[in-house]
């Protein structure tokens, strides 16, 4: 024990370390002396760079996690997957349209899906990966877009897939098609942009820019943080 913090034993790429039990895998690896040159990004659970596989002693289960989010456990055996080799095929989003076979046309490997759910088990974001792959296979682009919303393209699903599918690439296409052609442009964005271009906010911005620091600071501190409906 160090400074009254409980320690746990973990193995990083085969080497044993004792680390405080309240650290994330990423911090624990740095505590143990590793310096991240790959496999680290936003450190905030959003970029997907720190894809990690681990097992816990006594269990055969292979788990996926984001190193910057997952807290260490006693007996963790850890390895990082800093990169997954995958081809993100090129297409012109202006030309592609959502049709029933658009997904299979661009990512034919989708037809190899075995519905084994290994991808879902590997996902650190608790996404139902198998379900969005299946939705893509049968041309339900809306469903694929909605189910894959939280995807960070960390690559763990692709690394584990026995059918050699790269789910996150297909999901990206689904979301792009959904946003551009199915859901369409956001009315509130268009309306707001029009208002800006019409000069409705010019006065207010001018006022803020000419304000002195103290009244500006006060204005900021007293701002309304509730979300307006």
């Amino acid at each position, binding site marked *: 024990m160090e400074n009254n913090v409980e320690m746990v034993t973990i193995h990083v790429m085969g080497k044993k370390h004792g680390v405080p039990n309240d650290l994330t895998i990423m911090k624990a690896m740095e505590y143990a002396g590793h310096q991240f040159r790959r496999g680290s990004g936003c450190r905030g659970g959003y970029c997907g760079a720190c894809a990690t596989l681990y097992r816990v002693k006594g269990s055969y289960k292979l788990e996926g996690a984001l190193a910057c989010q997952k807290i260490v456990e006693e007996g963790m055996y850890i390895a990082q997957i800093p990169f997954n080799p995958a081809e993100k095929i090129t297409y012109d989003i202006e030309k592609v349209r959502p049709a*029933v076979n658009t997904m299979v046309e661009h990512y034919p490997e989708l037809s190899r899906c075995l519905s084994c759910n290994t991808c879902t088990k590997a996902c650190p974001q608790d996404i139902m990966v198998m379900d969005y792959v299946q939705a893509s296979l049968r041309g339900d682009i809306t469903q694929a877009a909605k189910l894959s919303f939280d995807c960070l393209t960390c690559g763990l699903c692709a690394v584990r897939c026995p059918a050699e599918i790269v789910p996150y690439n297909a999901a990206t296409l689904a979301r792009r098609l959904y946003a551009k052609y199915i859901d369409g442009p956001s009315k509130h964005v268009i309306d707001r942009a029009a208002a800006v271009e019409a000069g409705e906010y010019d006065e207010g911005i001018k006022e803020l820019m000419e304000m002195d620091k103290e009244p500006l600071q006060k204005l900021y501190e007293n701002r309304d943080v509730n979300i307006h409906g």
Partner: protein
Amino acid sequence: MRIAYYPGCTLKTNAKNFEDSAIASAKELGIEMVEPDRWNCCGTVHALVKDDVMHHLAPVRNLIRVEELKEADKVDSKQVVTLCAMCYNTLKRSNQTFNEDADKKQKIHDVMYKEDIKYSGNVEVLHYLEVLREIGWDKVKEAVKKPLDGLKIAPYYGCLLLRPRGIGIDNADNPTIIEDLIEALGGEVVDFAYKQKCCGAYHTVHMKEAVADLSHNVLKYAQDAGADLLITACPLCEYNLGPRQTQIKKQYPIFDSIPVVYFTQLMALAFGLNDGATAFEANKPDPTPLLTERGLME
């Protein structure tokens, strides 16, 4: 009657006409086909080697979905009906394997630990034709408003509705179930020698010339026997016999095209359903000129 309905991937894409016409015509017979919110590709083919567990996951998962529907009281029984002959064959066979092989059952449960329930093994897999036979051809006949008078229909069974032994919905050598349906709809049955001969199946992807040869035989025998059109129960057969006719024409220039439709589309036609239920727009070659000429369509 509310029955669980398993569509299969192709029924949502190339074979949407199969689904639309089936659901509409089923309604006329008092059948509500209830699709699970969540389902996956069945895998199309049954794993024939004995050590394979992986390829049973997909079908068994779908059977769990059926049980979940029953638990939620959205259907009346643990039966599931499919339209696609390949889905029927795959689901039924994996169901059997699951129930007969305790070791595989255990392994399947182990891998599928994320499912909320363990599959009980009690789902009954049916093909829609079996459901119709069960309801009774009289009942089907009662629903007919526009009998298919004078329409000479060749029943094409293909492989997986009838084979292997023990799985087929009818006698593999001498089936009559589609003939019974044709008669109930008021059509004229055209029996022909190639009604259970393979269309070439998945070879259509990389050996389309061989498929064109086989399909040409099937179509030609039906034509020679006097058929106006063929009906089928499998989206792969429909693709090989229908859209593949462009390939057939390349190899057999004197071949005359002949329409191929799903049996449910003729049901919808005979039941007098108009609002897009027959869904003939997607069929290649187009059956509407023939049907219009026969006074069966406006």
